[in-house]
Every structure is written in structure tokens, then in C-alpha cells.
């Protein structure tokens, strides 16, 4: 995979949430983690579309867990970030850090005193 491949903002959020959750990352916990840490409530459909797209790109892989009664006997599908996914995420975050270098986001001059 191309390490320079760009990731969308939501893709980065999902990858970070999956990394934070470790072995417990599946649809429900990822949505909860994103809601808890970002205050956003993404639609489940948006999450699945993003996860499947990243699977096709080789950024994440899935493994089936055990079926549980509260899921109607269906297995959880746990997500793991691949090495390519980590590389792409690191590359995207590095670009953000480079752009942020030298900027004080709370600087009153930049935001018209809103944060002064």
C-alpha cells in the first residue's frame, strides 16, 4: 500500500478509536468511544461504510468473535488496524503536527480575541 495515501478526517477518528479500544473494538464500542471522546454521534451506517472502505484499502482487518444473546445470536466482528493502517495514520497525524508547528491555536490575534 502507498504510505502517502491520505486519510479522511472520519477515517482518522475511526482508526484512533480502534487503536484506543485494542482487542475490544467492534461497531458498538467504536461508536461509543467516538461519542465519548469527540462528542459526535456518527450514524452506524457511516461507520460501517468507512470500516468496509478501509478494509478494502487494507487499513483494517476483521476477526469474528463469539455470538451473544443480546445480538440475537450473531457474532461480533472485531476490528484490528493493520501495519498499513498505522503507517497511514502516522503519516496523516505527522502532516497535522507539521502544520500546527509554530501556531498557537489560542492566540488572540488568530481568532479575533475569541479565546483571549
Amino acid at each position, binding site marked *: 500500500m502507498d504510505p502517502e495515501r491520505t486519510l479522511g478526517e472520519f477515517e482518522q477518528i475511526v482508526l484512533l478509536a480502534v487503536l484506543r479500544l485494542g482487542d475490544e473494538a467492534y461497531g458498538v464500542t467504536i461508536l461509543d468511544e467516538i461519542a465519548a471522546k469527540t462528542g459526535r454521534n456518527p*450514524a*452506524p451506517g457511516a461507520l460501517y*461504510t468507512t470500516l468496509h472502505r478501509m*478494509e478494502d484499502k487494507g487499513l483494517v*482487518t476483521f*476477526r469474528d468473535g463469539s455470538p451473544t444473546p443480546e*445480538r440475537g445470536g450473531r457474532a461480533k466482528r472485531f476490528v484490528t488496524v493493520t501495519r498499513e493502517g498505522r503507517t497511514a495514520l502516522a503519516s496523516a497525524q505527522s502532516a497535522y503536527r507539521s502544520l500546527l508547528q509554530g501556531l498557537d491555536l489560542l492566540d488572540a490575534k488568530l481568532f479575533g480575541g475569541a479565546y483571549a
Partner: protein
Amino acid sequence: MPNSISSADRSQPITRKTQPAEWLLARIAGPDRSAAIMGDLAEMAQTRGRLWFWMAYARTIVETGWRVSFSFVLGCAIFSLIDWLCGSHRIWLVQALRLGRPHMMLHISPYLWLFLYSVTTPLWFTAPFVVARYGIRDRFVRLILLFTFVMTCAMDYPHRFTLLFVSVTLFAAAVSLFWERWRKPVLVFAATVGMGTAAYLVISRSVFWGFWYFGHQYHRNGFDGFAAPHLILWIAMWAIALSSMFIITFVCARMHRRLLERPAATDRTIA
């Protein structure tokens, strides 16, 4: 770890009536993905309610399925455009694209013409469909694009058809044999093109033999000639095209999912 649980455990009210919904989602997202999605929605619905479950399901269907629908419509649109361009009234456009060179199609065997036409015509739907559905990075898509280009050229220059066809076939066979990363894409490609051609050939021949039979009966009853109404011919042509397109879509999606999309690992395989 067992892969299924007893029926008593499947008694959650939100999941009892979702089998048709899961079936529909499986047609779009695949059986593994749809089971996991339905499981997640059922789990979340325990605290959010039945209405939330169905709203989330509807949004998931739309967000997951729009690309499939869009790809199909795009394929139909491009097919129609090429079909329209090749119509007798627009032949000057094709002639202009050919830079005034004479068309050779009338000088070849009708069987070769039928074969060429049956292979190439479904490709005019397949190529845009797979580009929109799977993206240009997919090796199978690149093979389809290359083959569509070669076959379209072969239709226009049939005297070079044999050379081109043999070259591409040998190339594909060599790649599939010696380069493992291309083996599965070539298999999906062969299945899609083969089924598309077979479907188009069988369906179109059946329909036209039907027209010939009715025309023959009409003639035997003492009428002069038989001319099917324009509308019926138009409907027949589109029925042929759409049937082939559905078969191509089905075979392509099945083969692509089975051979080119990564299956999820299980707890057992991880262990």
C-alpha cells in the same frame, strides 16, 4: 467456542423479525458484514428502542447500498450512450472517431461478428459498473478496462481481432499462472466476461429466434412479411440488455466477494 447459540437465546424481540431485513442487507453488504451490522444494531437497540433500530437500519441500507445502485445506473447510462452512438443515424460520429477509415465489419463471417458483438456489448456496461463499484485500484477492474478497450478496437478493426484476442488471452493466462497476485483477479475477470458473454448470447438468440418463429408463422398464414412493432423491438432489446446486466452484476459481485475480499478471521484461526 461454538459458532451459534440455541434458539432460546435468539428470543430478543428486536431480532425476531429482522430476517428479511438482514437478507436485504446481505444482498448489498455481503452475509458476514450484514450479520455483524444487524448484531450491532440489535445490541444498541436494547437501550435505544425499536424505532431507533429501524431508522438506523434504513440509513445503513442507504449508506451501504448507494454505491451499488449508482454503479448499476452508471453502467446502464454508459451502455445506452454507446448504443445510441452506434445507431444508424449517428454512424457519422463513429465514422468521425475512426478518422474516415472504412468499416470492416461487413467483410467478416457473421459468426465472428456475432461472437465479437456478444463479448463486447456486455463490456460496455461492465466497465463503468466495476470502475464505480470497486475503484480503479482494483486489479480486476484494470483487466476489465484493458479488455474492453481491446475488444472495442477489435470490433472496429476485426481483421486484427485474432491477433489482439490471442495476445490478451495469452497475457492473462501467463499472468495468472506466474504472478500469484493477479491469479484471483484473472479468475473473477474470466467468470464475469464469460458469464456476461454467455448470458448476452443466449438471451439475445432466444429473443430473436422467438421473433423469427412468430414471423415465420405469420408468413405461413398468408401474410406478406413480418415487421415487429418498433416499441416491441425496443422493449426486447432492453430486456436482453438488462437481463445480461443483472447476471453480470450478480456473478461479478459473488466472485469478487469470494476471491478478492478478505474474509474475517475467527477466534479459532487467531488462536
